């Protein structure tokens, strides 16, 4: 069964149509990557899935775990099991990272310290959320919150951009724990829980593909001008983009369009 099913989704920001009929299916347990040049609509797609204001769905629907969430407010989507790591999260003055982490954790607070340690964020817990955080710290703080929130489908918007090589490994590990592909060192889990967690899925945006050295992706998609123009093996797509640029995706798309 698909954890996420997006059908013919059109999204406008203001008067401008940014997404022009997206179809995307993510089965349970799979990691999908989303490639595409700057401004192609990747963040817009994640924002529409989360239901942020200003991203107006003009056509189509978003189905999460069999539930049509197209009209639901953001927090209800979060409570149903959607989570997101922001490309550029805002700073929240006066609210400590620890407070926000506790909110994400709900009853699961004991994992907080452990995950903070793993992500090298222990000292940041007492700092205000994203206030003066470096680029890499922001990304790690996003993952800390998600690890505690335990979403079933996680949307990762460039989790490794601006992160140094050593920290990419840490972020990769965090994503694998998040997806139940790796068990945190001290964690004891029932087999039932392990099985449940294996059903977790991700939609991951990456430009460089560096994170794919740590996280196994099942399928990749290319977004161009608000349309998914290609889907397939993520490593193949990445190497095509690396060797020939997005130009090749345009060409390929046109050919297919003519042929089909």
């Amino acid at each position: 069964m698909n954890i996420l099913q997006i059908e013919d989704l059109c999204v406008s920001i203001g008067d401008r149509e940014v997404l022009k009929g997206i179809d995307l299916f993510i089965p349970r347990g799979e990691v999908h990557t989303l490639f595409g040049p700057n401004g192609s609509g990747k963040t817009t797609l994640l924002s529409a899935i989360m239901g942020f204001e200003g991203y107006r769905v003009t056509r189509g629907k978003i189905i999460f775990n069999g539930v049509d969430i197209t009209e639901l407010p953001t927090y209800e989507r979060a409570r149903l099991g959607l989570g997101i790591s922001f490309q550029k999260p805002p700073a929240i003055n006066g609210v400590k990272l620890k407070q926000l982490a506790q909110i994400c954790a709900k009853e699961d607070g004991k994992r907080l310290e452990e995950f903070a340690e793993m992500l090298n964020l222990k000292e940041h817990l007492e700092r205000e959320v994203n206030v003066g955080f470096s680029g890499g710290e922001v990304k790690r703080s996003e993952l800390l919150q998600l690890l505690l929130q335990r979403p079933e489908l996680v949307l990762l918007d460039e989790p490794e951009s601006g992160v140094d090589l050593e920290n990419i490994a840490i972020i990769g590990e965090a994503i694998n724990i998040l997806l139940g592909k790796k068990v945190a060192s001290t964690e004891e889990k029932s087999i039932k829980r392990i099985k449940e967690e294996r059903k977790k899925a991700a939609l991951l945006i990456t430009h460089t593909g560096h994170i794919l050295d740590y996280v196994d992706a099942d399928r990749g998609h290319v977004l161009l001008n608000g349309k998914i123009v290609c889907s397939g093996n993520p490593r193949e797509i990445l190497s095509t983009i690396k060797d020939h640029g997005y130009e090749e995706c345009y060409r390929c798309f046109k050919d297919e369009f003519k042929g089909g």
Partner: protein
Amino acid sequence: MGNEIERIVKEIKDEAPPRSEEEIKRLSEEERNLLLKTGIDILGKNRCGLFFQHDHSVIKCESMVDGVEVMDIEEARKRYGLEEYWWKLIPPDKDIWTKRAAEHQEHGYFIRSFEGAKVTYPVQSCLYLSMDRLAQDVHNIVIAEEGSELHIITGCAAGPHVRSGLHVGISEFYVKKGAKLRFTMIHNWAEEMAVRPRTVVVVEEGGSFESNYICLLPARDLQMYPTAILSGKDAVATFNTVLLAKEGSYMDTGSRVVLKKEGCRAEIISRAVSVGGTIIARGHLVGEAPGVKAHLECKGLLLSPKGVIHAIPELEGRTSDLDMSHEAAVGKIAKEEIEYLMARGLTEQEATSLIVKGFLSIDIEGLPDELKREIDGLISTVEKEGL
């Protein structure tokens, strides 16, 4: 004088029946809770002194440690004269309110920490107004003698049956060489009250004064502009102000620091939230000596289209080689911040509440936990009503 305040003053009574110490025991639970919200824990133990003025009577006055004395100001004047402190920082004819206090004054507190005394727990002082339409005019003197450390929590509150009234408070504080005074004041007034504190503090060489002012409940008309004069080298002043104005409240508050000698430093920080009321957030730094350093920060958050926040930061340099700066910002909560928190599962309401709490949470050292919790709770409820 505005129409509102004229009306309030017209209806005001200047006489109150005498109260006795017995009243403390007779305070209802509602009243005790009310005082708790101003930091006054009548039954608690974590203090080193208590002053309690009920309407026009001082009903309790005690010091639990050797380093501090707490007295009714009348008593202190009889015993010490206090000529060199009485009306020395504030001229009685400064405005109609100081004039009023000079004529009508009924008590007030005298608190002094002795030379070198370091007091761990705060002195709690409470100015309680239990009668509707009563005027309370007090005159307070605080002296932190050389090298001493003193923390005072003053809670000013109107009782559950008070709607209207007038409070005028003259406060003259003296922070001597190397002394430290921390003064935390919580105002919990009633909807129709007019409030006119008049405060001037002088800080000598190496001394430090820290003021924390919190006003989260409505007051019809509040106007104050406490001033710290840093008269000695390396003196320091900090003002933290937290204000929340409901519809119908008018708060015109500011803090001023005059830096007169080299090495003086000052910081003024204010956070104002309006859920429909008007807040004028002022700040004024006057640099008179080279090498002083001072910063002023006024931030306002508007949660209702009816609200008004007017930030007026002023920097006045009277010599070259100054380092004075300011930062002012007024606006509503950024949509991105709310959505960020909603993406973690908070409702719009919960997200807003957390952001407002964060906005108002300037670290106030030494604030009792009880009071912190009260403030948090208060912000949540007020803010719910306001939206």
